[in-house]
């Protein structure tokens, strides 16, 4: 960060020149300079305390993109160290106690100051999920979604939580300093107040109103932008993130690759990888990876989200508490809430579900993923289990997330499991399906609705729910098995039993958990608790490495789960699969997945039916409607998604045919 050469004292001639150029110092001997220092580049500067200055040669690029001469003009510098090639100009009050990296450009700022013992936002306690406290997470630069999730949610393991607190405290202590830092190549322009803020390499801070007690993490390959009108207090903002357009951020962590802007306000909240937040408000939320809220009147409060899309006017609350707010809303990965949906916490929504309407009663539908959840007129929750399994939205979401990972830096802190179908979601489908079977078998036909954990389901829909889930479970399991068979066949077929065997290093748990966007067998988590408890994992680095190792084992752990689930669902042991029944399994996949893809096509077709065309052909006749619709929306056969799905059906047929031929050769 500092200059490439050691700093030495000014010569008398240099002091004379600086003085003649309007510069003053309490004691010129406290001002030291690097080799190649050019006093001609310093005008109207007051030096207080120890100030070290780099060579100041050449030009730097300003925040507005102009090449500007390096140098210092019209500024007061107090106890600062400046690297080579820095430009500092028009500082209204002063820059105090900062190290400014080579090539940094600071123009038109009011005050930049670090106070003794600052931790730059690290250590700020954030009251996540419950505004009243109880689940506080302290911010630190290396906070990952997984670390935060465990700290926030696993309070039932107090000794483990104590260890996490200690790991975090060590990180906070590590950054504690009397001196702030503005990184190499950073650009800071038109900012009124920066107090106790570390600004990382190549960050741009342009037009922000006030930044107090925080860290802006940034790197050359993942530069961070803080833009117009931003007010941020007690914060950490991750690499490659943009916080712009009047956003207000307080006691908040914004992770890597996020976008926050358009006057969004966030308080007491954590946002992790690739979140997007515009217009609305967040209060005490855990916004796991890919939490997205784009619209005004949307208040996300006291909830746990990930891979989530909030419709406009989405709102949650709990006004039924007596001894202070107790919220605890959980929308598991992949959920959506429709416009003006409301939920009275506590609620728990299973993965990939859609919530519509105003829900004034609590429910727990965690065993019913991919559900359509709609409020009745009286606020009761009505659910259609599994209805969203084969919708266009689910398929498109699953495809888009991996392609929209904006994180660019070398260190990606949050581990992300993108799979829509996984031991977590399929395991829930199996559990949900079992519960629906029991209800179906034990409910008289005269009964209109049955209750599932606070939600209502029409009795006639129980059979459909089982059918949807069966289709999803079979499709997933068969796909995994056939993929392994294909791999074995590619290698000549001799290794079929080996391909279908579980890895010795894999871990099996019937139950899987989603830890801040990373899915894993529950046993892996138990092992992690034990390693932390025994002291085998004794710091943040080792803790995060352990999570990395779990992430790397996902594929083998998943396969171990598939083997068990396959036996449970189909009654067959995969150790006994031979070439002959491998062909039958392939046929089953063709049937199940072919139907599945057809259902998605049918869902896509709804976009083109007559009801959808309502509203088209303004000022035209009925006959104009179809023409207007086609001009705007296109038609079914030429739609890109429809073509993709048709191609997927064709590819599936080709794939299975090819596999069966290869199996014949192997037999």
């Amino acid at each position, binding site marked *: 960060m500092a200059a490439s050469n050691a700093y030495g004292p000014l010569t008398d001639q240099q002091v004379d020149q600086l003085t003649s150029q309007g510069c003053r110092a309490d004691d010129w001997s406290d001002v030291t300079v690097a080799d190649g220092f050019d006093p001609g580049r310093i005008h109207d500067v007051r030096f207080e305390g120890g100030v070290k200055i780099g060579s100041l040669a050449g030009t730097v690029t300003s925040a507005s993109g102009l090449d500007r001469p390096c140098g210092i003009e019209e500024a007061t510098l107090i106890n600062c160290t400046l690297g080579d090639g820095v430009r500092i100009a028009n500082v209204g009050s002063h820059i105090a106690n900062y190290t400014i990296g080579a090539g940094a450009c600071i123009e038109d700022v009011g005050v930049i100051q670090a106070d003794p013992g600052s931790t730059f936002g690290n250590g700020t306690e954030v009251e996540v999920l419950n505004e009243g406290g109880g689940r506080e997470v302290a911010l630190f630069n290396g906070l990952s979604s997984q670390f935060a999730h465990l700290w926030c949610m696993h309070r039932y393991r107090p000794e483990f939580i104590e260890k996490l607190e200690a790991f975090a405290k060590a990180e906070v202590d590590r950054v504690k300093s009397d001196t702030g830092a503005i990184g190499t190549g950073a650009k800071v322009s038109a900012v009124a107040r920066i107090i106790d803020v570390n600004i990382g390499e190549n960050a741009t801070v342009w037009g922000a109103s006030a930044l107090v007690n925080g860290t802006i993490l940034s790197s050359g390959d993942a530069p961070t932008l803080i833009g117009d009108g931003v007010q941020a207090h007690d914060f950490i903002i991750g690499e490659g993130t943009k916080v712009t357009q009047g956003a207000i951020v307080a006691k908040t962590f914004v992770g890597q690759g996020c976008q926050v802007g358009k006057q969004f306000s966030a308080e007491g909240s954590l946002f992790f990888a690739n979140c997007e937040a515009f217009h609305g408000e967040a209060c005490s939320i855990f916004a796991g990876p890919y939490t997205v809220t784009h619209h005004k009147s949307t208040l996300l409060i006291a909830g746990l989200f990930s891979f989530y899309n909030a419709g406009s006017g989405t709102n949650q609350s709990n006004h039924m508490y007596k001894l202070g707010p107790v919220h605890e809303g959980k929308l598991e990965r992949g959920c959506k809430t429709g416009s003006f949906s409301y939920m009275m916490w506590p609620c728990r929504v299973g993965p990939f579900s859609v919530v519509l309407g105003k829900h004034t009663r609590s429910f727990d539908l965690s065993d019913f993923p991919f559900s*359509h959840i*709609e409020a009745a007129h009286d606020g009761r929750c*009505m659910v*259609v289990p599994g*209805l969203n399994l084969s919708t266009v939205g689910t398929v498109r979401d699953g495809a888009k997330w991996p392609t929209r990972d904006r994180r660019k830096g070398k260190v990606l802190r949050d581990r992300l499991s993108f799979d829509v179908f996984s031991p977590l979601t399929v395991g829930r489908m199996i559990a949900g399906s079992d519960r629906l079977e029991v209800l179906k078998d034990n409910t008289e*036909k005269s009964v209109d609705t049955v209750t599932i954990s606070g939600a209502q389901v*029409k009795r*006639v*829909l129980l*059979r*459909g729910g089982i059918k949807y889930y069966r289709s999803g479970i079979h499709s997933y399991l068969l796909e995994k098995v056939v993929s392994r068979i294909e791999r074995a066949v590619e290698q000549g077929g001799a290794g079929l039993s080996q391909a279908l065997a579980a890895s010795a290093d894999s871990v099996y748990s019937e139950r899987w958990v989603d830890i801040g966007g990373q899915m894993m067998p529950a046993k892996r988590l138990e092992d992690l608790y034990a390693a932390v408890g025994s002291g085998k994992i004794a710091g943040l680095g080792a803790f995060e490495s352990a999570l990395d190792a779990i992430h790397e084992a996902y594929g083998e752990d998943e396969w171990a789960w598939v083997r068990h689930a396959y036996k449970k669902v189909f009654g067959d042991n995969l150790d006994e699969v031979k070439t002959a029944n491998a062909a039958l399994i392939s046929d089953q996949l063709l049937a199940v997945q072919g139907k599945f893809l*057809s*259902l998605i096509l*049918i869902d896509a*077709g*709804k976009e083109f039916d007559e*009801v959808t065309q309502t509203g088209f052909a303004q000022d035209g006749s009925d006959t104009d409607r179809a023409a207007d619709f086609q001009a705007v929306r296109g038609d079914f056969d030429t739609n890109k998604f429809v073509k993709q799905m048709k191609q997927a059906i064709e590819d599936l047929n080709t794939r299975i045919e090819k596999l069966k031929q290869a199996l014949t050769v192997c037999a």
Partner: protein
Amino acid sequence: MSDTAERVKKVAAETLKIDLSMVKDDSRFVEDLGAESILSVVLVAAFEEEFDIEMDEQGALGVKDVSTAVTFIEKHL
């Protein structure tokens, strides 16, 4: 009127909570009887139960009114 048609109308009226007299042969489930969103799913499930059949989704999509429902269901009986 066939027995199937009578049963279709009865199921539609009960499911959609409307008077049986409002359900005509040419009544459209969505536009005329209000079977939108969840109700359309419930209606298909109710037909499946009433007639003990499994309506495939592709076919069910073509069922827009009472008369096409009758034709569709009679094919499955």
